[in-house]
C-alpha cells in the first residue's frame, strides 16, 4: 500500500534541499547561495540522488537538479521522481543552460528552472523560496480539504465539491452512495488501530480509482463512513466489488472484512447534500444485519418512514403539552406463593396521536432515543406514574410500586437524581415506590460514570432493575460490580427458550446465576401457563406478560389493585427463595414419561382459554391384556413410546398429560372446530406411527375421544364431553376416534 506524504511542518524549521550537481564549482556556488538559509544535501550522481530521495523524501522540501549528470540524464531522474506517488509532490527546480531543455522539463513536471550561468544569489534564493512556499501552500490546502488518513475529501469540502459537481451536472442524474465496514469498531478492537487504518486506506484507494474512472467525488466522514457522489449508474454491484478488492486477499475467511453499501439513486437535487447522504445511510442501515443483502437501495418505504419520523419529532412537544401520551400499566406477579400475588406494575407509554391514531411504541421510542427527546418523555412518564401510585394509595390504601424506564440519555443528565427525588417528594411517596429499569446495554458503555450515578440513586433508596438481561455483552465480572436489585430477563430470551426446548436450560442457568448473586428475577413476555409454571419452578420470582394481563390504562388496572386489597404482602423479605423447588415440579409430572400428571392437568385445564381449545382423550386398546401377557416392563416401554409419539405429533403449545396408566389427554390451545382437519391429521399421524411398531414393540392402536370448545349442544365441559365421545366409541369399535 502506498503511503501518503505528510508535509506539515512548523514554519520555523529549516527546510532541506537536495542539490544534484556534479561540477565542483557549481556545487560551491550553490552552497554559498543557500547554506545560510537551508540545510543542504548533495548528490553527485543520479544513483546517489535517487538513493537519497528514497530514504529522505519525507524531510525534503525541494530538489535542485542539474540536467548534466555523469550517469543518468536529468530528464530520467525527473521522470522517476514524478512517477512515484511517494515523492511526486516534491518540487523540482531544474538547472540548465539550454533553453530548449527548459520547456521539456516543465512538461515533465519541473516546477521552475534556474539558468546557467546562475543569476545572482538573491534571484536564486527568491525562486527557491517561492517554490517551497507555493508547494507548501498547495499541500496545506490539499490537506485542509482532505482527511489525513485516506486522502479523500473531508466532510466540509466534500459538501462544497458536491455542490460544484451539481452545477456542472445540472441536467444529469446523480447518485449518493454510502459505504460502511460491518462491525468496524470490532476490527479495531481485535486487530489494532494500525490494521484498521490500513483497511481504511485500501478502501479509499479503491474508491478513488472508481471516481477517477467514472467521474464524481469521494470523501470520508469519521471512522468507516465513505461517501461517493457520482453520475448515475445502475451497476452498484460492480462498485462494491471494486471497493472490496484486495481486502480479504490473504484468504483467511475468519478475518473477512465485509462492506455494506447504501444507495440513494437519482437524487432529488432540491435536497441539500447532507440529506441526500442521510437517505443513502438509511439504505445502508437497512442491510446492516442482513446475511444475504449487502446493497440497500433507498426506496419509498424508507421515504415514508423518514416522513413519519419527521412528523413524530415535530408533533412531540404538542403531544407532551396536550397529554397525548398515556401511561399504561402491566401487572407483575410474585409467582412463588401458591397463588400469584400482585407485586408491582410496569409503566409503559402509549401515544394516542390525533391524526395517526395509536403510534407504535417501537417506532417512536427508538426514534426519540436517537435524538434525545426521550429524556422529556421519560420524565413525563415518571411524573404520571408517581401521581398514579399516589392516587391508588389514597383510594385503595395499597402502595403499589411501579417500574419506569430510565434511558441511557437520562443517565448522563447531571440533574437526574434531583429530578427523581423531586418527583417522589411532590407525590408524597418514598424512593422505594418508583422502581428504575435500566437496560443492560447502558452498563456496558461508560460503565464507571453510570455506576456512580446508579449508586447514588440506590443510596437514596431507589431500587434498580436491570432490563433486557441477556441481550447485551456484559461480562460476568460486571454483575459483581453493578449496583442492582433485580434482573429482568430479556423478553426474546424467554420466548426463544420455550420454542426450542433445549434453551430452557440456559434460562435456568440465568435464574440460578441471579440467585447466586442474591438477585430476584423478573420474566417478561410470559404468555402461557406452561411458561409461567416452568419459570416458577426454575425459581423465577416475578412474572409479567399476557398470561396475566396486557398493559392496561389506569382505570382498567384498578381491578388488580382492588383484588390485592386485603392480601397483605408478606413482611418485606430480604431474601427471595434460593433453591429451585424440585418437589413442586415432581408433584405435577408423571415420572415415567415426563408428561403432566393429573394434578398438572387440573391446573392446565383450569387455566386454559375455554373458548379456544380442543381436548382429546386417548386410551391404549387392550392395555390390560397386553400387560398381563407381556409384563410390566413391556407396557412401560409401550407407554413411553405412546408418549413420544404424542409429543412429536402435536404442537409445542399443546399440553399432553398422562391421566391413568393407559390414558392420555391432550389439551390443544388456540384451536376451534375450524381447524378440524388439522386435528384429524394429527390423530392420523399418531395412529400410523403406532400401527407400525418397532423392533421391540408390537403395533398398537389408540381409541380417541375428541371435543372442541365450540361444539354443538355441549353436555358437560370440554373434557367431560370428550370423555363421552370416547365411551360412545368404545361401545362400537376400537382403533379410531370419535368426535363429540
Amino acid at each position: 500500500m502506498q503511503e501518503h506524504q505528510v508535509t506539515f511542518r512548523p514554519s520555523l524549521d529549516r527546510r532541506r534541499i537536495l542539490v544534484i550537481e556534479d561540477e565542483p564549482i557549481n556545487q560551491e556556488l550553490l552552497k554559498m547561495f543557500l547554506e545560510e538559509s537551508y540545510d543542504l544535501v548533495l548528490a553527485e550522481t543520479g544513483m546517489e540522488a535517487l538513493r537519497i530521495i528514497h530514504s529522505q523524501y519525507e524531510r525534503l522540501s525541494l530538489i535542485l537538479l542539474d540536467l548534466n549528470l555523469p550517469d543518468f540524464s536529468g530528464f530520467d531522474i525527473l521522470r522517476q521522481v514524478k512517477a512515484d506517488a511517494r515523492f511526486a509532490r516534491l518540487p523540482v527546480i531544474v538547472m540548465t543552460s539550454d533553453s530548449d531543455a527548459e520547456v521539456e522539463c516543465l512538461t515533465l513536471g519541473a516546477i521552475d528552472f534556474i539558468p546557467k550561468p546562475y543569476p545572482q544569489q538573491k534571484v536564486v534564493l527568491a525562486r527557491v523560496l517561492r517554490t517551497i512556499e507555493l508547494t507548501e501552500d498547495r499541500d496545506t490546502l490539499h490537506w485542509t480539504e482532505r482527511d489525513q488518513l485516506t486522502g479523500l475529501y473531508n466532510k466540509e469540502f466534500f459538501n462544497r465539491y458536491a455542490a460544484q459537481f451539481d452545477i456542472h451536472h445540472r441536467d444529469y442524474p446523480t447518485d449518493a452512495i454510502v459505504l460502511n465496514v460491518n462491525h468496524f469498531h470490532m476490527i479495531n478492537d481485535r486487530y489494532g488501530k494500525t490494521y484498521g487504518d490500513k483497511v481504511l486506506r485500501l478502501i479509499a484507494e479503491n474508491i478513488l480509482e472508481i471516481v477517477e474512472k467514472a467521474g464524481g467525488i469521494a470523501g470520508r466522514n469519521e471512522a468507516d463512513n465513505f461517501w461517493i457522489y457520482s453520475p448515475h449508474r445502475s451497476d452498484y454491484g460492480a462498485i462494491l466489488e471494486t471497493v472490496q478488492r484486495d481486502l480479504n486477499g490473504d484468504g483467511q475467511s475468519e478475518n473477512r472484512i465485509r462492506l455494506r453499501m447504501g444507495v440513494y439513486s437519482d437524487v432529488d437535487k432540491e435536497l441539500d447534500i447532507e440529506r441526500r447522504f442521510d437517505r443513502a445511510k438509511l439504505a445502508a442501515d437497512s442491510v446492516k444485519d442482513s446475511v444475504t443483502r449487502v446493497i440497500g437501495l433507498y426506496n419509498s418505504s424508507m421515504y415514508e418512514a423518514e416522513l413519519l419520523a419527521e412528523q413524530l419529532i415535530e408533533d412531540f412537544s404538542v403531544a407532551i403539552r396536550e397529554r397525548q401520551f398515556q401511561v399504561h400499566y402491566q401487572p407483575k406477579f410474585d409467582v412463588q406463593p401458591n397463588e400469584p400475588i400482585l407485586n408491582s406494575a410496569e409503566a409503559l407509554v402509549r401515544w394516542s396521536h390525533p391524526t395517526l391514531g395509536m403510534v407504535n411504541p417501537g417506532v417512536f421510542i427508538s426514534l426519540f432515543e436517537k435524538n434525545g427527546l426521550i429524556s422529556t418523555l421519560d420524565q413525563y412518564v415518571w411524573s404520571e406514574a408517581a401521581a398514579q401510585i399516589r392516587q391508588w394509595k389514597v383510594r385503595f390504601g395499597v402502595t403499589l410500586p411501579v417500574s419506569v424506564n430510565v434511558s441511557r440519555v437520562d443517565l448522563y443528565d447531571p440533574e437526574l437524581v434531583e429530578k427523581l427525588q423531586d418527583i417522589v417528594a411532590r407525590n408524597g411517596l418514598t424512593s422505594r415506590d418508583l422502581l428504575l429499569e435500566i437496560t443492560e446495554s447502558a452498563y456496558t458503555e461508560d460503565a464507571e460514570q453510570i455506576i456512580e450515578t446508579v449508586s447514588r440513586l440506590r443510596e437514596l433508596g431507589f431500587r434498580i432493575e436491570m432490563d433486557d438481561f441477556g441481550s447485551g455483552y456484559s461480562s460476568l465480572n460486571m454483575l459483581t460490580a453493578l449496583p442492582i436489585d433485580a434482573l429482568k430477563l430479556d423478553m426474546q430470551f424467554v420466548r426463544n427458550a420455550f420454542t426450542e426446548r433445549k434453551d430452557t436450560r440456559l434460562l435456568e442457568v440465568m435464574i440460578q446465576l441471579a440467585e447466586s448473586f442474591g438477585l430476584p428475577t423478573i420474566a417478561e413476555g410470559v404468555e402461557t401457563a406452561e411458561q409461567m409454571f416452568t419459570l416458577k419452578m426454575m425459581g423465577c420470582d416475578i412474572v409479567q406478560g399476557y398470561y396475566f394481563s396486557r398493559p392496561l390504562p389506569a382505570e382498567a388496572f384498578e381491578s388488580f389493585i382492588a383484588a390485592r386489597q386485603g392480601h397483605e404482602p408478606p413482611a418485606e423479605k430480604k431474601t427471595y427463595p434460593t433453591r429451585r423447588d424440585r418437589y413442586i415440579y415432581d408433584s405435577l409430572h408423571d415420572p415415567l414419561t415426563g408428561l403432566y400428571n393429573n394434578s398438572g392437568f387440573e391446573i392446565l385445564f383450569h387455566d386454559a382459554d375455554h373458548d379456544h381449545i380442543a381436548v382429546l382423550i386417548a386410551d391404549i386398546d387392550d392395555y390390560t391384556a397386553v400387560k398381563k401377557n407381556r409384563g410390566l416392563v413391556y407396557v412401560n416401554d409401550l407407554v413411553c413410546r405412546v408418549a413420544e409419539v404424542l409429543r412429536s405429533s402435536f404442537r409445542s403449545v399443546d399440553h399432553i398429560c398422562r391421566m391413568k396408566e393407559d390414558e392420555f389427554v391432550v389439551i390443544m390451545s388456540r384451536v376451534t372446530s375450524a381447524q378440524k382437519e388439522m386435528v384429524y391429521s394429527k390423530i392420523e399421524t399418531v395412529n400410523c406411527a403406532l400401527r407400525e411398531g418397532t423392533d421391540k414393540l408390537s403395533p398398537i392402536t389408540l381409541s380417541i375421544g375428541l371435543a372442541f370448545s365450540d361444539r354443538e349442544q355441549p353436555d358437560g365441559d370440554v373434557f367431560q364431553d370428550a370423555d363421552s365421545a370416547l365411551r360412545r366409541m368404545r361401545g362400537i369399535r376400537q382403533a379410531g376416534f370419535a368426535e363429540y
Partner: protein
Amino acid sequence: MTIDELKAYGADVAEGLQRCMNNESFYFRLVKMIPGDPNFRKLYDAVAGEDFGAAFEAAHALKGSTGNLSLTPIFAPVSEITELLRARTQTDYTALITEIRKASDELARICEG
C-alpha cells in the same frame, strides 16, 4: 592573483564577483579550481579521438563552470565549441582547441602568481 590581473586577462570580474556574493576570497578560490578541471583533458582527448559525445559533455561542463565565473576568455571559445559539438559538426576544431588551451594556460599562470 589579483583583481586587476584578472581584469587585464579579460574576465568579467564585476559579474563574476557579484555572482560570488562580492566575496573576493571565495571568488579567487573558485577561479583557482578552473585550470585543474579534468574536463579540459577530457575535451582535448575526445576531440582528438573524434568522440563527439564525450567531447560535448566535457565542453558543456566547462561552459557551465567558466560561465558561472564569467571567465570570458575561456567561456567564449568553449561555448562555441559546445554548440558545434552538440550538433556533431564535422569540422576542424584545432583553432578553437588552441584558443581554449591558450586561455586556460594563461589563467593557470595568473593563479600561481
